[in-house]
């Protein structure tokens, strides 16, 4: 199965509810990840504040951090290769990577999950 790995910046919560303002992108993305998992996707999230070793042990992630710094996160690897950086994927992208059929599923988390349209 395709493995999707999300390397998050240092977050208190993966939904971002601990910030001064709840980050819509994180809220939407947390729901999208949950949805993709329910549909059988293999997704792991790594929080820089909680599992830094996972960042250090992955040469791709480590090189990315050294080049671009923690501000450039999130970084998304699909089967170990960089698929996306600097923003979260939307539900369609997750579905494509995980080969989930989304024909009858018009992204219930709305237009802004992962994108910056709102």
């Amino acid at each position: 199965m395709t493995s999707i790995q999300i390397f998050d910046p240092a977050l208190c919560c993966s939904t971002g509810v601990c910030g001064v303002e709840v980050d819509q992108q994180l809220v939407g993305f947390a729901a999208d990840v949950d949805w993709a998992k329910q549909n059988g996707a293999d997704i792991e999230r790594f929080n820089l504040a909680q599992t830094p070793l996972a960042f250090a042990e992955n040469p791709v992630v480590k090189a990315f951090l050294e080049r671009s710094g923690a501000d450039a996160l999130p970084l998304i690897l699909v089967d170990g290769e960089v698929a996306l950086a600097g923003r979260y994927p939307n539900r369609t992208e997750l579905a494509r990577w995980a080969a989930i059929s989304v024909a009858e599923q018009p992204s219930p988390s709305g237009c802004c999950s992962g994108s910056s349209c709102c």
Partner: protein
Amino acid sequence: MNSDCKFLDQAPRFLFFTGKGGVGKTSIACASALELADAGKQVLLVSTDPASNVGQVFGIDIGNQITAIPAVSGLAALEIDPQAAAQAYRDRIVGPVRGVLPDSIVKGIEEQLSGACTTEIAAFDEFTALLVNSDLTAGYDHIVFDTAPTGHTIRLLQLPGAWSGFLEQGKGDASCLGPLAGLEKQRSQYKAALDALADPQRSRLILVARAQASTLREVARTHEELNTIGLSQQYLVVNGILPESETAQDPLASAIYQREQNALTDIPAAVSGLPTDCIELKPFNLVGLMALRQLLSKSTPLSTSDNEVIPAIPAANLSTLVDEIAADGHGLVMLMGKGGVGKTTLAAALAVELARRGLPVHLTTSDPAANLTDTLNGALPELAVSKIDPHAETERYRQHVLSTKGAKLDEQGRALLEEDLRSPCTEEIAVFQAFSRIIREAGKKFVVMDTAPTGHTLLLLDATGAYHREVARQMGDSKQHFTTPMMQLQNPHQTKVLIVTLAETTPVLEAAHLQNDLRRAGIEPWAWVINNSVAATTVHSALLRQRAANELPEIAEVADRHAQRYALVPLLREEPTGVERLLALAGGQSPSPLVPTDHKGEG
């Protein structure tokens, strides 16, 4: 047993003493352990007090391993330093990546793990081993803890989400579990520890309070919180009660006696039914076996040191601080400190004193029990008062987030968000958001707040601020001006932080920790206020004079080591409510008993 304390009657194996800093948990725990050992039991005493003086009390070095107390047969002790435990815990997570990942990133991770939750969880991690059956503790009839996990810690460990895959697979997709990520023990061990805590046959929780309305209210909250999560075997100890015999010819002592008796009469209903013991204030320091053996017994030998002269303390009063605050003409004044040190009263006193000088002031309080709005509103033309209810704000914030950010989520996504919104940060953020609406006024007038987020939370808030700035920069939106709450708080021209404490060992130590926390967040506290000081009054009662003498080294500690400037606020005969008494508290109007100079020749 030589005492008749209910909380030691048919004591189970585990005894936990809980209560806020400075109520005397450690002394009572030591005395209890001693009494059980004297009765022929094998006892282990465990202290997690950051100011642990268990070693000093028994006259030997103890530290982080079980050490037999030579002078008492059957007694051993162990000191757990929560800060050191938290550091060890951070090292476990951060150590392997130090030098591997860029330094700035490692520093950011350490900051994320510097919150109070981390310290609490790390300490719990340390004493889990003592609660489960092991060779380590097999020989002890009783294990006495001078602390207990808070409801927050227990809930965190009970969260089903905490375990589903988190520790087993080591995958970080459970949310809001930062502090749990580095735990090394097994799920089964935590479960066994929690089971032991909730078993009345094995565990007894002893709530320790003082005879003060605010402390008793806090204890009632703790009782209810721990009761709901299954710790049903609870006892109450009210420590340090002034005996009636001290009230003769001492008006302050009489007033304190009366106030304490009233507080006991009006004890919150939630705890009034608990088996309760009252321990009288003792005239001696609780150091040494003799003193400890007398703590729990009723008859107190009279102190022989009542004739000591208490030296005068040269310290500013609140009014002196107000002089400097007033000079700026406007700004934010925040009072920080642990619950029960008097932040609300002092905030009101500062606000009233500023308003008396004709300066525009907005006083805002989050103390649910404060009825400042009723007493003060309209009392002074320049003073506006507003109140923030933390529970209502938290609920409103939750609903707001769910109905806006969560509006388009499906049921599962919504449930996920709802669980995250139960995180302990949420209340602090919700309250701070409510305050930040008011903070904006500080550009034109004075805003006085009786509460403030911790340094750790401020850093989290700022991380978001930095993120928003970054987004704006990337979008090329240069017109928008970003000022995060943090930037305002770091600017000494805009914000003055006052740390409030009591002149007692543990509260001073806790305040010093708070100061370090703030410094890490780039905020330098402007002043310290030592509240309810007996040393700043004139007293005749031998007991109170002993208490005053005990305060002196603590005041010196604040003056010499911690504070840039500080003020000493005397313990008052009456609760400072209403404009007149608050003005008197500030010390600007009436002559205050600031410096006790007339002790010579008393006896």
